[in-house]
Protein backbone atom coordinates (compact mmCIF):
# COMPACT_ATOMS: atom_id res chain seq x y z
CA UNK A 1 0.00 0.00 0.00
CA UNK A 2 1.26 3.47 -0.86
CA UNK A 3 1.90 5.32 2.42
CA UNK A 4 0.50 8.53 0.93
CA UNK A 5 -2.71 6.87 -0.26
CA UNK A 6 -4.63 7.15 3.00
CA UNK A 7 -7.00 10.08 2.39
CA UNK A 8 -7.33 11.10 6.02
CA UNK A 9 -3.57 11.20 6.51
CA UNK A 10 -2.51 12.96 3.31
CA UNK A 11 -1.17 16.48 3.54
CA UNK A 12 -1.36 16.46 7.32
CA UNK A 13 1.13 16.47 10.15
CA UNK A 14 3.02 13.51 11.47
CA UNK A 15 2.60 12.74 15.16
CA UNK A 16 5.34 11.41 17.38
CA UNK A 17 5.64 10.26 20.98
CA UNK A 18 8.27 12.25 22.85
CA UNK A 19 7.36 11.60 26.47
CA UNK A 20 6.14 8.65 28.53
CA UNK A 21 4.86 8.36 32.07
CA UNK A 22 3.22 5.59 34.01
CA UNK A 23 2.10 4.12 37.28
CA UNK A 24 1.54 0.40 37.53
CA UNK A 25 1.77 -2.62 39.79
CA UNK A 26 5.52 -2.10 39.48
CA UNK A 27 5.25 1.32 41.14
CA UNK A 28 5.82 4.82 39.86
CA UNK A 29 7.63 5.32 36.60
CA UNK A 30 8.26 3.91 33.17
CA UNK A 31 11.64 2.50 34.24
CA UNK A 32 10.37 -0.20 36.66
CA UNK A 33 7.46 -0.93 34.28
CA UNK A 34 9.74 -1.56 31.32
CA UNK A 35 12.29 -3.40 33.41
CA UNK A 36 9.63 -5.92 34.45
CA UNK A 37 8.06 -6.24 31.01
CA UNK A 38 11.37 -6.61 29.23
CA UNK A 39 12.26 -9.47 31.58
CA UNK A 40 8.89 -11.21 31.47
CA UNK A 41 8.17 -10.56 35.16
CA UNK A 42 4.57 -10.29 36.26
CA UNK A 43 3.25 -8.02 39.00
CA UNK A 44 0.21 -10.04 40.05
CA UNK A 45 0.13 -10.12 43.85
CA UNK A 46 -2.26 -11.02 46.70
CA UNK A 47 -4.94 -8.50 47.55
CA UNK A 48 -5.59 -7.69 51.20
CA UNK A 49 -8.48 -9.67 52.68
CA UNK A 50 -11.55 -7.41 52.42
CA UNK A 51 -13.24 -6.28 55.63
CA UNK A 52 -16.64 -6.24 53.91
CA UNK A 53 -17.09 -9.97 53.22
CA UNK A 54 -16.03 -12.97 51.14
CA UNK A 55 -14.32 -12.41 47.82
CA UNK A 56 -13.20 -15.06 45.35
CA UNK A 57 -10.83 -12.63 43.64
CA UNK A 58 -7.70 -12.80 45.76
CA UNK A 59 -4.99 -11.39 43.48
CA UNK A 60 -4.47 -8.41 41.22
CA UNK A 61 -1.81 -6.21 39.66
CA UNK A 62 -1.78 -3.38 42.17
CA UNK A 63 0.77 -0.97 43.61
CA UNK A 64 0.97 -2.46 47.10
CA UNK A 65 3.13 0.16 48.84
CA UNK A 66 1.70 3.31 47.25
CA UNK A 67 1.84 6.21 49.70
CA UNK A 68 0.04 9.26 48.25
CA UNK A 69 1.78 11.65 50.66
CA UNK A 70 5.16 10.63 49.24
CA UNK A 71 4.16 11.93 45.79
CA UNK A 72 1.38 14.51 46.03
CA UNK A 73 0.53 17.46 48.21
CA UNK A 74 -2.38 17.42 50.60
CA UNK A 75 -4.82 19.29 48.35
CA UNK A 76 -4.44 16.90 45.43
CA UNK A 77 -4.77 13.87 47.68
CA UNK A 78 -7.99 15.37 49.00
CA UNK A 79 -9.36 16.08 45.51
CA UNK A 80 -8.27 13.01 43.57
CA UNK A 81 -9.28 9.38 43.88
CA UNK A 82 -6.48 6.82 43.67
CA UNK A 83 -6.67 6.38 39.87
CA UNK A 84 -6.69 10.13 39.23
CA UNK A 85 -3.68 10.50 41.52
CA UNK A 86 -1.93 7.98 39.30
CA UNK A 87 -2.93 10.01 36.22
CA UNK A 88 -1.35 13.15 37.66
CA UNK A 89 1.88 11.30 38.45
CA UNK A 90 1.99 9.77 34.96
CA UNK A 91 1.34 13.13 33.28
CA UNK A 92 4.13 14.78 35.27
CA UNK A 93 6.55 12.04 34.28
CA UNK A 94 5.57 12.20 30.60
CA UNK A 95 6.19 15.95 30.52
CA UNK A 96 9.52 15.73 32.30
CA UNK A 97 10.50 12.84 30.02
CA UNK A 98 9.73 15.02 26.99
CA UNK A 99 11.90 17.78 28.45
CA UNK A 100 8.93 20.11 28.86
CA UNK A 101 7.78 22.13 31.84
CA UNK A 102 4.39 22.84 30.36
CA UNK A 103 2.89 22.15 26.97
CA UNK A 104 1.36 25.12 25.08
CA UNK A 105 -1.89 26.20 26.75
CA UNK A 106 -3.95 25.21 23.70
CA UNK A 107 -2.75 21.59 23.88
CA UNK A 108 -5.15 18.70 24.36
CA UNK A 109 -5.59 16.32 27.27
CA UNK A 110 -7.51 13.13 26.53
CA UNK A 111 -7.81 10.42 29.16
CA UNK A 112 -9.48 7.04 29.15
CA UNK A 113 -11.23 5.87 32.28
CA UNK A 114 -13.74 3.06 32.57
CA UNK A 115 -15.04 2.90 36.13
CA UNK A 116 -14.26 6.35 37.57
CA UNK A 117 -13.26 7.05 41.16
CA UNK A 118 -14.48 3.80 42.63
CA UNK A 119 -12.65 4.12 45.97
CA UNK A 120 -14.58 7.28 46.85
CA UNK A 121 -17.83 5.84 45.52
CA UNK A 122 -17.52 2.55 47.40
CA UNK A 123 -16.56 4.33 50.62
CA UNK A 124 -19.54 6.68 50.38
CA UNK A 125 -21.96 3.78 49.80
CA UNK A 126 -20.43 1.90 52.73
CA UNK A 127 -20.92 4.98 54.91
CA UNK A 128 -24.61 5.35 54.12
CA UNK A 129 -25.66 1.71 53.62
CA UNK A 130 -23.53 -0.14 56.18
CA UNK A 131 -22.52 2.49 58.72
CA UNK A 132 -25.84 4.36 58.46
CA UNK A 133 -23.93 7.63 58.55
CA UNK A 134 -26.02 10.73 57.85
CA UNK A 135 -23.56 12.20 55.32
CA UNK A 136 -20.76 11.31 52.92
CA UNK A 137 -17.55 13.17 52.15
CA UNK A 138 -18.32 16.44 50.34
CA UNK A 139 -15.72 15.77 47.64
CA UNK A 140 -17.24 12.41 46.68
CA UNK A 141 -18.68 13.71 43.39
CA UNK A 142 -15.48 15.35 42.05
CA UNK A 143 -13.51 12.27 43.11
CA UNK A 144 -15.93 9.86 41.44
CA UNK A 145 -16.27 11.55 38.04
CA UNK A 146 -14.33 9.75 35.32
CA UNK A 147 -12.92 13.02 33.91
CA UNK A 148 -11.30 13.93 37.23
CA UNK A 149 -7.83 12.95 35.99
CA UNK A 150 -8.08 15.05 32.81
CA UNK A 151 -9.46 18.01 34.74
CA UNK A 152 -6.85 17.93 37.48
CA UNK A 153 -4.02 17.69 34.93
CA UNK A 154 -5.48 20.67 33.05
CA UNK A 155 -5.74 22.68 36.26
CA UNK A 156 -2.18 21.78 37.25
CA UNK A 157 -0.74 22.75 33.86
CA UNK A 158 -3.04 25.63 32.97
CA UNK A 159 -4.07 23.89 29.76
CA UNK A 160 -7.22 25.33 28.17
CA UNK A 161 -7.35 23.24 24.97
CA UNK A 162 -9.65 20.30 24.18
CA UNK A 163 -9.77 18.26 27.38
CA UNK A 164 -12.05 15.28 27.78
CA UNK A 165 -12.40 11.67 28.85
CA UNK A 166 -13.41 8.65 26.83
CA UNK A 167 -15.17 5.82 28.64
CA UNK A 168 -15.41 2.75 26.46
CA UNK A 169 -14.63 0.05 29.02
CA UNK A 170 -11.39 -1.74 28.13
CA UNK A 171 -10.89 0.36 24.97
CA UNK A 172 -11.07 3.72 26.80
CA UNK A 173 -7.38 4.62 26.61
CA UNK A 174 -6.97 3.57 23.00
CA UNK A 175 -9.95 5.73 22.06
CA UNK A 176 -8.30 8.56 24.02
CA UNK A 177 -4.92 8.16 22.31
CA UNK A 178 -6.66 7.91 18.93
CA UNK A 179 -8.66 11.12 19.39
CA UNK A 180 -5.57 13.01 20.57
CA UNK A 181 -3.60 11.66 17.61
CA UNK A 182 -6.22 12.81 15.12
CA UNK A 183 -6.49 16.27 16.70
CA UNK A 184 -2.73 16.63 16.41
CA UNK A 185 -2.54 15.26 12.89
CA UNK A 186 -5.21 17.65 11.69
CA UNK A 187 -3.37 20.62 13.17
CA UNK A 188 -6.09 21.33 15.72
CA UNK A 189 -3.67 21.26 18.67
CA UNK A 190 0.10 21.66 18.98
CA UNK A 191 0.62 18.94 21.59
CA UNK A 192 -1.40 16.44 23.55
CA UNK A 193 -1.21 14.42 26.71
CA UNK A 194 -3.12 11.20 26.07
CA UNK A 195 -3.58 8.01 28.00
CA UNK A 196 -5.72 6.60 30.73
CA UNK A 197 -6.01 5.78 34.41
CA UNK A 198 -7.85 3.27 36.57
CA UNK A 199 -7.95 1.79 40.05
CA UNK A 200 -10.63 -0.91 40.31
CA UNK A 201 -9.64 -2.63 43.56
CA UNK A 202 -12.65 -1.91 45.75
CA UNK A 203 -14.94 -4.52 47.24
CA UNK A 204 -18.20 -3.63 45.48
CA UNK A 205 -16.63 -3.58 42.02
CA UNK A 206 -14.61 -6.75 42.67
CA UNK A 207 -17.85 -8.53 43.65
CA UNK A 208 -19.24 -7.47 40.27
CA UNK A 209 -16.17 -8.86 38.47
CA UNK A 210 -16.47 -12.03 40.55
CA UNK A 211 -20.05 -12.46 39.30
CA UNK A 212 -18.88 -12.12 35.67
CA UNK A 213 -16.69 -15.23 36.20
CA UNK A 214 -13.87 -13.94 33.99
CA UNK A 215 -11.16 -13.34 36.62
CA UNK A 216 -8.57 -16.08 37.01
CA UNK A 217 -8.03 -17.71 40.41
CA UNK A 218 -4.53 -18.36 39.12
CA UNK A 219 -2.04 -16.20 37.21
CA UNK A 220 -3.40 -14.91 33.90
CA UNK A 221 -2.14 -17.12 31.06
CA UNK A 222 -3.16 -15.40 27.82
CA UNK A 223 -3.35 -17.61 24.73
CA UNK A 224 -2.53 -20.75 26.78
CA UNK A 225 -4.60 -23.91 26.88
CA UNK A 226 -6.24 -24.15 30.29
CA UNK A 227 -6.27 -20.39 30.88
CA UNK A 228 -8.83 -19.36 33.46
CA UNK A 229 -9.30 -15.67 32.90
CA UNK A 230 -7.78 -12.27 33.43
CA UNK A 231 -6.14 -10.54 36.36
CA UNK A 232 -7.34 -7.03 37.03
CA UNK A 233 -4.77 -4.27 37.22
CA UNK A 234 -4.48 -0.64 38.22
CA UNK A 235 -2.36 2.23 37.05
CA UNK A 236 -2.07 5.09 34.61
CA UNK A 237 -0.22 5.72 31.41
CA UNK A 238 0.31 9.07 29.70
CA UNK A 239 1.98 9.81 26.37
CA UNK A 240 3.17 13.23 25.30
CA UNK A 241 2.32 13.53 21.61
CA UNK A 242 3.61 16.27 19.36
CA UNK A 243 4.07 17.28 15.77
CA UNK A 244 7.13 15.54 14.36
CA UNK A 245 8.62 18.69 12.84
CA UNK A 246 8.23 20.50 16.15
CA UNK A 247 9.87 17.63 18.00
CA UNK A 248 12.77 17.55 15.53
CA UNK A 249 13.21 21.33 15.71
CA UNK A 250 13.55 21.29 19.47
CA UNK A 251 15.80 18.23 19.43
CA UNK A 252 13.37 16.08 21.38
CA UNK A 253 13.89 12.36 21.71
CA UNK A 254 11.37 10.57 19.52
CA UNK A 255 10.31 7.16 20.83
CA UNK A 256 8.04 6.27 17.92
CA UNK A 257 5.46 7.69 15.56
CA UNK A 258 1.74 7.17 15.87
CA UNK A 259 0.93 6.18 12.34
CA UNK A 260 -2.77 5.44 12.40
CA UNK A 261 -5.89 4.74 14.38
CA UNK A 262 -8.92 2.57 13.71
CA UNK A 263 -12.23 2.05 15.48
CA UNK A 264 -15.21 -0.21 15.05
CA UNK A 265 -18.23 -1.64 16.83
CA UNK A 266 -19.08 -5.35 16.74
CA UNK A 267 -22.82 -4.53 16.79
CA UNK A 268 -23.21 -8.07 18.05
CA UNK A 269 -23.30 -8.81 21.81
CA UNK A 270 -22.68 -6.91 25.03
CA UNK A 271 -19.94 -9.26 26.28
CA UNK A 272 -19.12 -11.82 23.55
CA UNK A 273 -16.48 -10.45 21.17
CA UNK A 274 -16.74 -10.89 17.40
CA UNK A 275 -13.63 -11.55 15.27
CA UNK A 276 -14.96 -9.52 12.32
CA UNK A 277 -15.48 -6.42 14.48
CA UNK A 278 -12.01 -6.54 16.00
CA UNK A 279 -10.47 -7.21 12.57
CA UNK A 280 -12.23 -4.18 11.13
CA UNK A 281 -10.62 -1.87 13.72
CA UNK A 282 -7.19 -3.37 12.96
CA UNK A 283 -7.71 -2.97 9.20
CA UNK A 284 -8.86 0.63 9.64
CA UNK A 285 -5.81 1.43 11.78
CA UNK A 286 -3.51 0.02 9.09
CA UNK A 287 -5.37 1.89 6.33
CA UNK A 288 -5.26 5.11 8.34
CA UNK A 289 -1.51 4.60 8.77
CA UNK A 290 -0.93 3.65 5.15
CA UNK A 291 0.65 0.43 6.39
CA UNK A 292 0.36 -2.92 4.66
CA UNK A 293 -0.18 -6.00 6.87
CA UNK A 294 3.31 -7.23 6.01
CA UNK A 295 4.77 -4.12 7.68
CA UNK A 296 3.28 -5.07 11.05
CA UNK A 297 5.95 -6.95 12.96
CA UNK A 298 4.47 -6.85 16.44
CA UNK A 299 1.00 -6.76 17.94
CA UNK A 300 0.45 -5.89 21.57
CA UNK A 301 -2.70 -7.96 21.87
CA UNK A 302 -5.78 -7.18 23.89
CA UNK A 303 -4.94 -10.65 25.26
CA UNK A 304 -7.04 -10.70 28.40
CA UNK A 305 -6.55 -14.40 29.07
CA UNK A 306 -10.28 -15.08 29.18
CA UNK A 307 -11.71 -18.13 27.46
CA UNK A 308 -13.64 -15.91 25.05
CA UNK A 309 -11.16 -13.19 24.11
CA UNK A 310 -8.05 -15.03 23.06
CA UNK A 311 -9.43 -17.33 20.30
CA UNK A 312 -11.57 -14.48 18.94
CA UNK A 313 -8.55 -12.16 18.87
CA UNK A 314 -6.54 -14.89 17.14
CA UNK A 315 -9.20 -15.10 14.43
CA UNK A 316 -9.34 -11.32 14.20
CA UNK A 317 -5.58 -11.07 13.67
CA UNK A 318 -5.77 -13.72 10.95
CA UNK A 319 -8.66 -11.89 9.28
CA UNK A 320 -6.95 -8.50 9.42
CA UNK A 321 -3.42 -9.55 8.50
CA UNK A 322 -4.13 -12.48 6.18
CA UNK A 323 -0.95 -14.42 5.36
CA UNK A 324 1.11 -11.90 7.33
CA UNK A 325 -0.47 -13.24 10.53
CA UNK A 326 1.91 -16.19 10.24
CA UNK A 327 4.93 -13.93 10.63
CA UNK A 328 3.73 -11.44 13.20
CA UNK A 329 4.98 -11.56 16.80
CA UNK A 330 2.14 -11.16 19.28
CA UNK A 331 2.19 -10.77 23.04
CA UNK A 332 -0.14 -9.96 25.87
CA UNK A 333 1.58 -7.68 28.34
CA UNK A 334 -1.58 -7.92 30.48
CA UNK A 335 0.03 -11.16 31.65
CA UNK A 336 2.41 -8.88 33.60
CA UNK A 337 0.73 -5.51 34.32
CA UNK A 338 -2.77 -6.95 34.61
CA UNK A 339 -5.91 -5.73 32.89
CA UNK A 340 -6.07 -2.10 33.91
CA UNK A 341 -9.43 -1.53 32.15
CA UNK A 342 -9.58 2.15 31.18
CA UNK A 343 -5.80 2.45 31.55
CA UNK A 344 -5.05 -0.78 29.65
CA UNK A 345 -4.50 0.81 26.25
CA UNK A 346 -2.25 3.47 27.77
CA UNK A 347 0.05 1.00 29.53
CA UNK A 348 0.09 -1.12 26.38
CA UNK A 349 0.84 1.89 24.17
CA UNK A 350 3.88 2.55 26.37
CA UNK A 351 4.90 -1.11 26.08
CA UNK A 352 4.50 -0.98 22.29
CA UNK A 353 6.35 2.32 21.89
CA UNK A 354 9.25 1.03 24.01
CA UNK A 355 9.30 -2.26 22.12
CA UNK A 356 9.82 -0.33 18.86
CA UNK A 357 12.27 2.08 20.49
CA UNK A 358 14.46 -0.58 22.10
CA UNK A 359 14.02 -3.30 19.47
CA UNK A 360 12.84 -5.70 22.17
CA UNK A 361 9.38 -7.27 22.15
CA UNK A 362 7.94 -7.97 25.61
CA UNK A 363 6.69 -11.54 26.06
CA UNK A 364 3.49 -13.22 27.17
CA UNK A 365 4.36 -14.22 30.73
CA UNK A 366 2.94 -17.25 32.56
CA UNK A 367 2.32 -19.02 29.27
CA UNK A 368 1.75 -22.77 29.65
CA UNK A 369 0.62 -25.04 26.82
CA UNK A 370 -0.38 -24.06 23.30
CA UNK A 371 -4.09 -23.72 22.57
CA UNK A 372 -4.83 -24.81 18.98
CA UNK A 373 -7.44 -22.04 18.84
CA UNK A 374 -4.76 -19.44 19.66
CA UNK A 375 -2.14 -20.53 17.14
CA UNK A 376 -0.20 -17.29 16.92
CA UNK A 377 3.45 -16.62 17.65
CA UNK A 378 2.83 -15.30 21.18
CA UNK A 379 6.44 -14.79 22.42
CA UNK A 380 6.14 -17.04 25.48
CA UNK A 381 8.04 -16.18 28.69
CA UNK A 382 11.09 -14.35 27.34
CA UNK A 383 11.41 -11.14 25.35
CA UNK A 384 12.43 -11.25 21.71
CA UNK A 385 15.07 -9.08 20.07
CA UNK A 386 13.44 -7.71 16.92
CA UNK A 387 13.10 -4.37 15.18
CA UNK A 388 9.79 -4.36 13.35
CA UNK A 389 8.95 -1.35 11.20
CA UNK A 390 5.50 -1.02 12.72
CA UNK A 391 3.25 -2.40 15.45
CA UNK A 392 -0.39 -2.46 16.46
CA UNK A 393 -1.82 -2.11 19.96
CA UNK A 394 -5.25 -3.72 20.25
CA UNK A 395 -8.06 -2.90 22.65
CA UNK A 396 -11.43 -4.65 22.40
CA UNK A 397 -14.02 -3.63 24.99
CA UNK A 398 -17.05 -5.22 26.55
CA UNK A 399 -19.87 -3.77 24.52
CA UNK A 400 -18.03 -4.72 21.34
CA UNK A 401 -16.17 -1.42 20.94
CA UNK A 402 -12.79 -1.82 19.32
CA UNK A 403 -9.90 0.63 19.09
CA UNK A 404 -6.50 -0.06 17.56
CA UNK A 405 -3.48 2.24 17.42
CA UNK A 406 -0.76 1.74 14.81
CA UNK A 407 2.79 2.79 15.68
CA UNK A 408 5.80 3.16 13.40
CA UNK A 409 9.44 3.06 14.43
Amino acid at each position, binding site marked *: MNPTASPSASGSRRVVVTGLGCVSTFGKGVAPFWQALSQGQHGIRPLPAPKEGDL*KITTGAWWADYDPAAHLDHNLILLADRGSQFAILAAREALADAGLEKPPTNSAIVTGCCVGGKHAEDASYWDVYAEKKPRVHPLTIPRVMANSGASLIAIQLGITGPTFTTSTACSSANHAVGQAFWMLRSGMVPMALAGGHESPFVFGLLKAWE*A*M*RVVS*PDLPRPFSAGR*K*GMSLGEGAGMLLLEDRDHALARGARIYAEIAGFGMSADAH*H*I*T*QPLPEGAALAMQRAMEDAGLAPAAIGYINAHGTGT*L*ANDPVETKAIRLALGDSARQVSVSSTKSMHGHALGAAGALEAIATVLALHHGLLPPTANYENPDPECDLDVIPHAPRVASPAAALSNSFAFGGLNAVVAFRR
Partner: protein
Amino acid sequence: MSLGSEHPDSVTGELTQRVIRVITETQKLPEGKITPASTFEELGFDSLDGINILFALENEFDINIPDDAARQIKSIPEMVTGIAGLLAAKANA
Protein backbone atom coordinates in the same frame (compact mmCIF):
# COMPACT_ATOMS: atom_id res chain seq x y z
CA MET B 1 -30.54 -33.68 54.12
CA SER B 2 -31.76 -36.98 52.75
CA LEU B 3 -30.39 -36.49 49.27
CA GLY B 4 -29.41 -39.83 47.75
CA SER B 5 -30.57 -41.89 50.74
CA GLU B 6 -34.21 -43.05 50.96
CA HIS B 7 -35.81 -41.84 47.74
CA PRO B 8 -33.02 -40.79 45.44
CA ASP B 9 -35.14 -40.70 42.28
CA SER B 10 -37.94 -38.60 43.72
CA VAL B 11 -35.50 -36.26 45.46
CA THR B 12 -33.51 -35.83 42.27
CA GLY B 13 -36.79 -35.36 40.44
CA GLU B 14 -37.80 -32.57 42.81
CA LEU B 15 -34.39 -30.94 42.46
CA THR B 16 -34.64 -31.16 38.69
CA GLN B 17 -38.05 -29.51 38.71
CA ARG B 18 -36.76 -26.75 40.97
CA VAL B 19 -33.76 -26.12 38.72
CA ILE B 20 -36.02 -26.06 35.66
CA ARG B 21 -38.41 -23.63 37.38
CA VAL B 22 -35.61 -21.22 38.33
CA ILE B 23 -34.07 -21.26 34.86
CA THR B 24 -37.50 -20.92 33.19
CA GLU B 25 -38.22 -17.84 35.32
CA THR B 26 -34.77 -16.31 34.91
CA GLN B 27 -34.78 -16.73 31.15
CA LYS B 28 -38.49 -15.82 30.78
CA LEU B 29 -39.11 -19.06 28.86
CA PRO B 30 -42.51 -20.67 28.29
CA GLU B 31 -43.46 -23.49 30.69
CA GLY B 32 -42.39 -26.85 29.32
CA LYS B 33 -39.66 -25.47 27.07
CA ILE B 34 -36.96 -26.92 29.36
CA THR B 35 -37.03 -30.70 29.88
CA PRO B 36 -34.99 -32.70 32.42
CA ALA B 37 -32.66 -33.72 29.57
CA SER B 38 -32.24 -30.32 27.88
CA THR B 39 -28.78 -29.09 26.95
CA PHE B 40 -27.91 -25.40 27.14
CA GLU B 41 -26.97 -25.48 23.48
CA GLU B 42 -30.46 -26.71 22.55
CA LEU B 43 -31.91 -23.92 24.66
CA GLY B 44 -29.71 -21.36 22.90
CA PHE B 45 -28.01 -20.08 26.06
CA ASP B 46 -24.86 -18.00 25.61
CA SER B 47 -22.21 -17.16 28.22
CA LEU B 48 -24.17 -14.18 29.54
CA ASP B 49 -27.27 -16.37 29.98
CA GLY B 50 -24.97 -18.80 31.77
CA ILE B 51 -23.83 -16.33 34.43
CA ASN B 52 -27.41 -15.10 34.93
CA ILE B 53 -28.59 -18.69 35.48
CA LEU B 54 -25.74 -19.45 37.88
CA PHE B 55 -26.56 -16.28 39.83
CA ALA B 56 -30.23 -17.28 40.12
CA LEU B 57 -29.43 -20.85 41.16
CA GLU B 58 -26.82 -19.76 43.72
CA ASN B 59 -29.46 -17.51 45.28
CA GLU B 60 -32.19 -20.18 45.11
CA PHE B 61 -30.13 -22.86 46.85
CA ASP B 62 -27.83 -20.60 48.90
CA ILE B 63 -24.75 -22.24 47.43
CA ASN B 64 -21.57 -21.17 45.70
CA ILE B 65 -20.99 -22.74 42.28
CA PRO B 66 -17.24 -22.46 41.60
CA ASP B 67 -16.12 -21.09 38.21
CA ASP B 68 -14.23 -24.27 37.32
CA ALA B 69 -17.28 -26.46 37.98
CA ALA B 70 -19.60 -24.01 36.24
CA ARG B 71 -17.57 -24.21 33.02
CA GLN B 72 -18.14 -27.97 32.81
CA ILE B 73 -21.93 -27.71 33.14
CA LYS B 74 -23.65 -27.74 29.77
CA SER B 75 -27.05 -29.35 30.45
CA ILE B 76 -29.88 -29.66 32.97
CA PRO B 77 -28.75 -33.13 34.19
CA GLU B 78 -25.18 -31.82 34.72
CA MET B 79 -26.53 -28.80 36.58
CA VAL B 80 -28.73 -30.98 38.79
CA THR B 81 -25.84 -33.33 39.58
CA GLY B 82 -23.57 -30.39 40.40
CA ILE B 83 -26.12 -28.72 42.65
CA ALA B 84 -26.93 -32.00 44.40
CA GLY B 85 -23.25 -32.41 45.19
CA LEU B 86 -22.98 -28.86 46.54
CA LEU B 87 -26.13 -29.30 48.65
CA ALA B 88 -24.76 -32.54 50.09
CA ALA B 89 -21.46 -30.85 50.90
CA LYS B 90 -23.35 -27.98 52.55
CA ALA B 91 -25.44 -30.42 54.63
CA ASN B 92 -22.29 -32.21 55.80
CA ALA B 93 -20.38 -29.03 56.55
